[in-house]
């Protein structure tokens, strides 16, 4: 799942290395809120899920680990 998340992020912003651990993508300016809307759509399509609106916060999209946790919460194995 981790690789798939990195692939989706890299498609969105190919110039950045999303595989680096512990980097906060939002604080570092690697993705902005426009990207975040695109990212939510892409995750929903690729993993066949619907992310609850209350979960669409910067915190849940700031690292690969936080996105992974969000997907697991939505039943993705």
């Amino acid at each position, binding site marked *: 799942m981790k690789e798939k998340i990195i692939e989706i992020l890299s498609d969105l912003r190919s110039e*950045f290395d999303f595989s680096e651990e512990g980097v906060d993508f939002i604080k*570092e300016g690697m993705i902005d809120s*426009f990207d975040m809307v695109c990212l939510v759509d892409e995750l929903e399509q690729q993993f066949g899920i619907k992310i609850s*609106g*209350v979960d669409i916060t910067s915190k849940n999209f700031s690292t690969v680990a936080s996105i992974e946790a969000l997907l697991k919460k939505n039943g993705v194995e």
Partner: protein
Amino acid sequence: MPVVKLTDHIIRNKLMDKIVSYEQVIEFVGEIRNLRQGYVTNFFWDEQKHPYWILDNSFFYEKCENCYILFHQNIGFTNIFYISTSLEAFSEAYQQITINNDHVIDVVCRNEGKGELDILKGLGYEPYKCLYRMSHIGLLADDNWERSDEVVYANDLDVDMVYEALHQDFDPICEQLPSLQEVRDFAKRQQILMIKDGEKLCGFLIFELSGTTTWYLRYWYTSPEYRNMRIGAKLLKASLIDGKMTKRQQLWVISDNENAIKRYEHYGFVKEKIYDYVMIKRYKL
């Protein structure tokens, strides 16, 4: 100096409440998405810009069926944003509201946005301008670049001068001009570079740095009497030196500003397929 003044309508109309926090906007998004009927928006939270709208009490919302409409009061016009299950739901909700000045909607999309634009045209909007996003990927500033001695950071005493030039020479409808407090804060963060001739302003450039990765050009200005004297080039170079660690540099440019586009292309910027269509509905008595 112009200041934002709320229209009588908004003061009178108790249905429109102030937006008081980022979290509140997130709640709107959550509520609409949880309806599971689709999701469209033209509002993308910008930490560098939107908190000021909340602070100066110029940001409002109205809750409608399947839709939230957000209003940002400007001098002489209102920016409209939607957080909605669909554009049709927004369209229905929009027809229930009245505001007594011009309305402006930005549609940001990765394509030509024909569907969105057609719906807005049906609501009485007409195209005003189109902006492209341009970007450069990779390090841009050359190690050999030297910053001109003429370039200085704007200080508190320069803020009024910069603010006045912005409001005299830029188009408020499509260039989302900053408030005086925003300009003050840009100066504090050393994000306004300027060149002066004695007390006269020759030019300035306002930029942002998002973390250590992205450099973002906000405003680039040369006074008419100082054009063709390489003022702009010196300012741009100095700001790129300040952002030399960034891996992405980006800006928005008005599509018919061919001179600016040529200059950006000269520095290696390329047009992205991301557009901002600015649509306007003129208020008629």
